[in-house]
């Protein structure tokens, strides 16, 4: 068993995957209808794909390989519109957000596919608890060593990405106090967290072989890291984002990551090191718990800053790269949101304060996802 070769891909290309909630339109609880939805989607020509996920009230959509933020948004719009149309024929709602606010994990059903049954057999109730919804962003890398360098460079911005994308304050019917409660479900997996600090593909292969020899892993899919290399695509995959409430936000986040990647590659603002990971879990916790108001500890200086301020500073540093990548709209979108509701967790809490009914909140999420609010 080996990782194989790292596929060729164009540097800084983008691919986005979004896991979505399928809900009924009666009480807006999760509804096991991915099979029906996938069947209806077969008739649609999509720029990407739509696939099942581990429990049958989830569905994943992905774009093809995109060059820019605008292309991501264009592809997401086509797939979103097709999905919403099919869902309406079945009287279903589709919603973004990292968790369903009031579903009970024990009622979930594993999708009928061999890998999902294997995961369920191994992880037990954790598999059903994994009914959480994330956005994954792939960034194309010219080679594997470049990919690993980018992976460790981007790790410093994991808290920023968590805080910006956080959209899961409610879980199992309660306000958890976290902006991103989704990641607490991911952390329960034994192979979650950060990748080992290895910056050469040979070194990474050696690590993988040792792990495979222990029998703990069989493929890269067994690692639930925050960022992981994806050799078959020639990309690295950022996995910490909650699925946003809109495709516009999803595209903007992808654009922001693309700009960060270009900045790290072209300007090389710092040299990644193992010590970057000293405050990693602290920073990540702060981002999950307090979102944009969380504390960020700069791994280089030890300085404590508010995440909101550090994100704002990053927007300024990325301006030239956003121009080069034609991703200005993405940065403008995030800037405007930062000044407004902050993140989707803020939007969800504000709506719930008005409505005081979680099913109504999910209905509003569905409207937002469909582009009708």
């Amino acid at each position, binding site marked *: 068993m080996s990782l194989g070769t790292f596929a060729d891909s164009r540097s800084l290309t983008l691919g986005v995957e979004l896991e979505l909630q399928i809900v009924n*339109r*009666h*009480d807006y609880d999760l509804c096991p209808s991915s099979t029906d939805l996938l069947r209806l989607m077969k008739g649609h020509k999509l720029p990407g794909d739509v696939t099942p996920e581990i429990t049958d009230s989830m569905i994943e959509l992905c774009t093809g390989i995109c060059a820019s933020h605008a292309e991501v948004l264009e592809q997401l719009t086509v797939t979103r519109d097709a999905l919403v149309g099919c869902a309406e*024929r*079945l*009287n279903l709602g589709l919603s973004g957000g990292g968790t369903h606010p009031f579903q009970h994990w024990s009622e979930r*059903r594993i999708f009928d596919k061999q890998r999902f049954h294997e995961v369920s057999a191994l992880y037990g109730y954790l598999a059903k608890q994994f009914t959480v919804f994330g956005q994954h962003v792939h960034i194309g890398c010219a080679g594997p060593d470049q990919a690993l360098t980018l992976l460790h460079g981007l790790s410093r911005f994991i808290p920023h990405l968590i805080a910006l994308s956080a959209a899961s304050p409610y879980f199992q019917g309660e306000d958890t106090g976290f902006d991103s409660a989704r990641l607490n479900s991911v952390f329960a997996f034994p192979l979650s967290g950060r990748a080992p600090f290895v910056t050469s593909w040979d070194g990474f292969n050696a690590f993988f072989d040792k792990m495979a020899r222990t029998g703990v892993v069989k493929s890269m899919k067994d690692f639930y890291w925050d960022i992981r290399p994806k050799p078959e695509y020639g990309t690295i995959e950022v996995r910490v984002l909650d699925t946003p409430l809109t495709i516009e936000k999803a595209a903007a986040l992808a654009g922001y990551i693309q700009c960060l990647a270009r900045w790290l590659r072209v300007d090389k603002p710092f040299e990644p090191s193992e010590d970057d990971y000293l405050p990693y879990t602290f920073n990540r916790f702060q981002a999950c718990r307090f979102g944009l108001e969380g504390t960020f500890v700069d791994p280089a200086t030890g300085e404590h800053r508010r995440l909101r301020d550090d994100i704002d500073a990053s927007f300024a540093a990325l301006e030239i790269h956003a121009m080069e990548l034609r991703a200005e709209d993405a940065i403008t979108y995030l800037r405007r949101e930062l000044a407004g509701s902050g993140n989707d967790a803020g939007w969800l809490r504000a709506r719930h304060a008005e409505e005081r*009914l979680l099913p*109504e909140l999910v209905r509003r999420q569905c409207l937002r996802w469909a582009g009708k609010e």
Partner: protein
Amino acid sequence: MTDSLVHLLKIDPWPPHPGLLFWLALTLVCAAVFGGVMHRYLRLPRVLGYGIVGVAVALVGMGTSDATLDGTDRLIVDLAMALLLFELGSRVSLRWLRVNKALWLTSAAESMLGFGAAFAVLHEAGMATDVALAGAPVLGVAAGALIGRIAAETRSAGQVTERMIVLSALNTLYAVLLGRVLIGGLYLGHQHDIVQGLAQPLYAFGGATLLALLLAHAVGWVVRRYDLRDENSVLLVLGLLLFALTLARMLGLSGLLVPLLGGVCLRNLSERPCIWPRHFGTAGAMPVVVMFVLVGATWSGPMLASGGVLALVVLGVRLLAKGVALVGLASLSGIETRQGMALALTQAPVSATSLVLLADLQASHPQVAAQIAPAALSAIALMALAGPVLIYLGLRLAKELP
């Protein structure tokens, strides 16, 4: 010795006269026990246990084997039907039917074929046209209350669950209206009374719609202002529903139509979800359980001997007819053939709705009802046991049970 002991203990009267409450309590205890057995050991819906208790009640000679559903029985059935049909109606999204027009078509086709099948069999069996027509809604109607109960009890979820609820609610709506039109027609045919013939259906629909709208607005107001996790708020909604039912009875409106339409109006007047405890909590669950016992209590040997075969033929032909529509239009409306077959199974039974329609016909046209009663009561009795199993099998075939 006994007399002196009774005198000493002041037990009066002796021997004791068990009243209504005694029998009600005994029924509840037996229904709960058998319902529990069905659920725990056979993994079948509890409602089957209630039906079995009903059959047992009938076998000891305390059944309801005639078409007149009156007194306390009628009150309990009306109460339970109001709760179940209001819940059922509140799941009918007109928006869905607008978006998925094939579902409208499916509903119209399966209802028309179902009523048509019942009419054709009764007519072929030698009944006069007007009698067979009057029997069509009684024997063609879906078991909306049973479907609602089983969906809630099993927590099934998916396309077949959603569609069996919507189709049975619409079918019940058509059946009640058809029933009223046909009763109006009977006035025209038998008594040449045009005013009665036209006024009956118009008043039935207009009056029921008005009352249903008032009910929906009132419940909607409560739902928006109060938290329905609070028992008191649930009782308020239950009270409003009972009030609407009482008004319907006082004004001679259908006790099926008002709550059903009320639910439909509530669902469609506002998009905000309305969620309340199943059957409005324990207070609502009690009449529901007793009603399914009463449905089982229609079981009677002589009745089955006279109408059982005809009932079986009607049920069989009806299943085939509905199946043609539900399976034939499955793909057009967005589901698989297997799901269409599952849906057909769920629409096969008759239950309390038929009992109420028959009782209404009995009240207005006893001679007509008397001709239909043997087949109708036999079908209801047979389906008291087979109905829950068929719906359960349908949901299993659709893989929608948890």
